[in-house]
């Protein structure tokens, strides 16, 4: 489903060039649950940005569902991303000016889904994640765990093929973190591919595969049962 071949990403700040990703080769199959781990600054988030087509690699290839998207324009990537890739972030990134259900509907609005269908799908997703009773609340009126569940609902409402999660439990206490992990597990079991960046070995262990990054390169890959 996803294949990175010799993918490289560099950042330039003044005269200093930093290599964030260095010749990454990675293949992720449909339905997999991959955890990306590594110390701060190792390139985890950059990898996630490239996988989510929020950023473009400087070198190498990026194959998504059989198409090499490296070199595509931002508009074309946005088109491909819409409806195919869902995101959840450490800081939830819910829009405060929108109510919970409006936040969830927003993902469908940009895909030109009719209003009635939007409402139905958002309500269904909120119900599924157990926060339907908070549909008319504003994000700031919810607990961290509830906010992350809204963010997950928003990410899943258009039934993406891949869900990219950047430290989804980073801002949550243990109990809420566990709850989010359980939801992700369930989503994966329902067939959604998940790539999750995490610092937590415990959470990483829930994935079917763990990719360890160090200084922009893949240092190790481990399956749920054995390290390679």
């Amino acid at each position, binding site marked *: 489903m996803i294949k990175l071949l010799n993918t490289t990403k560099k950042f330039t700040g003044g005269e200093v060039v930093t290599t964030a990703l260095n010749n990454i080769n990675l293949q992720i199959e449909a339905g997999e649950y991959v955890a990306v781990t590594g110390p701060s600054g190792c390139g985890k988030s950059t990898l996630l940005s490239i996988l989510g087509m929020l950023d473009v690699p400087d070198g190498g290839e990026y194959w998504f569902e059989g198409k090499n998207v490296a070199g595509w324009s931002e508009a074309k990537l946005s088109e491909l991303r819409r409806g195919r890739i869902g995101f959840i972030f450490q800081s939830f*990134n819910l829009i*405060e000016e929108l109510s919970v259900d409006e936040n969830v509907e927003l993902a469908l609005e*940009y895909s030109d889904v009719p209003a009635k269908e939007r409402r139905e799908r958002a309500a269904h997703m909120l119900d599924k994640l157990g926060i339907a009773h908070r549909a008319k609340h504003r994000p700031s009126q919810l607990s961290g765990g509830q906010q992350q569940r809204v963010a997950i609902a928003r990410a899943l409402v258009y039934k993406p093929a891949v869900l990219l999660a950047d430290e989804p439990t980073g801002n949550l206490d243990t109990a809420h973190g566990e709850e989010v992990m359980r939801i992700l597990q369930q989503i994966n079991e329902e067939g959604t591919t998940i790539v999750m960046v995490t610092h937590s070995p415990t959470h990483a262990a829930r994935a079917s595969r763990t990719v360890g990054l160090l200084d922009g390169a893949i240092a190790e890959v481990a399956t749920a049962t054995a390290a390679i």
Partner: protein
Amino acid sequence: MKLQDFRVGLRILAKDPVYSLVSILGLGVGLGVCLLLLSYARYCWQYNSHVPDVDNVYIVKQRDNLELGAPWYDQAPLLLLTAAKTAPGVSNASGYVGWFPLTVEVDGQLRKLGSLTALPGFAELMGLQAIAGDLNEALSRPDTIAITESTAIRLFGTSDVLGKTMLLRLSAVDENRSTARIAAILANPPHNTTIPFETLSGPHLALVPQEMRDELLGQSQWPGYLLVRLQPGASLAAVEAVLQQAFDQSPHAQSIAPEQKERLGNRSISDIKLSPLRDAYFDNEVATNFLSLPVDRGDSTVVAGLVAIAVLILALAAVNYINLTTIRVVRRQREVAMRKVLGASNKRLALQFSAESLLVSMLATATGFVLAWICLPVFAELMNRNLGSMLSVANLGTALGLGLILGLTTALYPAWIAFGVRPSLMLMGRPDTETLRSKRLRQVLSVLQVSAAIGLASFTLAISWQARFATNASPGFDPSSLAVFDLPKGVSARDEKARGLMAALSQRPEVAGIAVSNDPVGRSQELWSTEIQREGREAVTIDVKSVSASFFEEYGIRPTAGRLFDPAIDKEADAAPIVLNALAARQLGFSSPEEALDQPLLFKTVVEEEPVVITKRIVGIAPEVRFYSLREKPGAVAYELSGSGAGWDGTLTIRARGSIADAERAAREVWPQYFPNSVLEIKPAREIYAANYADDARLAKLLGLSTAITMVIAAFGVYVLAADAVQRRTKEIALRKLFGTRRRQIAKLVAKEIGAVILWSVVIGLPLAALAITRYLAAYTEWSPLALWALALAPLAALAIAALAGARQAWIAMTLKPAVALLRN
């Protein structure tokens, strides 16, 4: 644009009421001021636009070439009307005369009417139609009159007055009274017209004396306001040539003396030209005389300046709003990034920001309209115009259009910033950032705000000081105990009733003395100038003031040399003595005032309607008296005794023994015994010459208000800039504090950010202000010594306001707790 976008916009506004209030009010005040000023400009530009086909209507003007430097008048001999009607290319010609002040008695009270005598064809040319009654009948019968709706209400309390009779009175003569039936009710002429009237009557009105009727309907030299409508494409020059020829062939033009003819050379005795009626309001080359109707005149430069100020204030308000929105968008970058992640295209984002901006601009437009509506009475008073109908539906539409454009324009830059947001950076935990270019742009916008404020403040201060200087400049005498009034139109101080009035007034204990002159000091309506010559020298044209023997004594004016007129020595009818001012003596070739004393002068005058040259003898030299405003160079002036000369003598000055108010009251009590048909209009002498600068004083007030608004906007701009700087540099400030930097140095850091803006603003704003001030002052012959100090004071004021605006942020920076700040960042 979706409903959701507006909903989000509303929620953003509701979330931060202070921000919203500042945004909407700031933009609303800008829009309100802009609406008032632009509506006023439109009002001025639309003078006379109610006249059908106004672009083809012209007013006939005349200039007398016999008198050197004579001005243009917007009245021309009525005999030209016949020529105008038959001139090729003319579709219609008519005119009106406003030669007598009509009064009417209602409930025992005398009311003055703005009355016009309409010449045949006037109603048709003006497109006048009666709301009720028959206008044709009203203007053709000797006992009928037409009245405007508002005048009917003013006089009778109702507009249902058709068929009512009024006792009309004319001038000062008791016999001149007759009843007239109201035969037509007319719609009120718009306030922006140079042809205002309350009543219209025809030349056949019984009240019009027969000889005057003959003048109005015959081939006479009597001056009237003549209007000519040209056919589309007709040659203006050809019509002017026809009128000029008609004038040149008139008996009056043919009868001039041979020496006058020689002096004129190839020139005609009078020049005739046509001026567009549409431009009449801005026609400042037209002078007034005793037959002129009191009409509004405006200055096109001032109106253009007001439009520039309107645009400037709106631009500053918009800049302010853009500054605020930009900061807000910078803080909303995460949201923008998230929207992009969810699939929002740039077009979609642009529409969203446009919707939010439109929401604010529409609320601001509504606020601005309400503010303009509330401020309209004050504004009308400032502009000295009746602007009651100014906020029309059309202007409301303009305001909405302006708000719409503003909303879309101010959305552009924030949308541009949103386009540049990179979700990969924003959403992966990096702090919100703003590009250096964006920061610079906001600084430039702040500089523009402050420089505009400094420039406007300098200009306003200069105008205010100059207006005050001119108003308080000594007129050459102490006006504090003098009050002035005109005798009824056509009445001379030599007439029996006028003499009776003066005798009665002199008996009143409140009145210390009475003087006669042809014009009050500071007003030039009864201009009279003639050629004066020393034997064997060139003749000089000099303005002549006809004054009574008591004039100098009552005005407290002392001679520079010799003596002035003295009631103990001079007889009112004595034509021999003459007093000159120093300039006149110099122009006549005297090397000193003393040399002029007792010297004879040949003085051209009119005796029994025949031009004659008489000999006068100089008795003294008078100091400079300000008959003209500070905009005109002092001219040569000669004084002759009013009872002896050809000049008019219809102005009386009373010197109060105690307060002016008591003297005025005495005059009001005595007046009706002598002039029961006329309304007395008495004013303190100071008001007469202060009226010359009334427009400047009003302009200064208006500019003062505009400056205050600009200053507030600029102060807010500085505040936002300082707040942004402190927030942007919080980490730096915290670190500096950790390393022991003192509060004073932190304050310096903030001051430096603001100081740079002020410095650049001074560099940009002051030269422009200096240019504007010198151009404004160029119209005056004397400048206030303070005027140029405005250039120094305004930047100081701006600095003080900036310091005040930045003080809070400086304090926040100084009291910043490093630990808290660093943890937060």
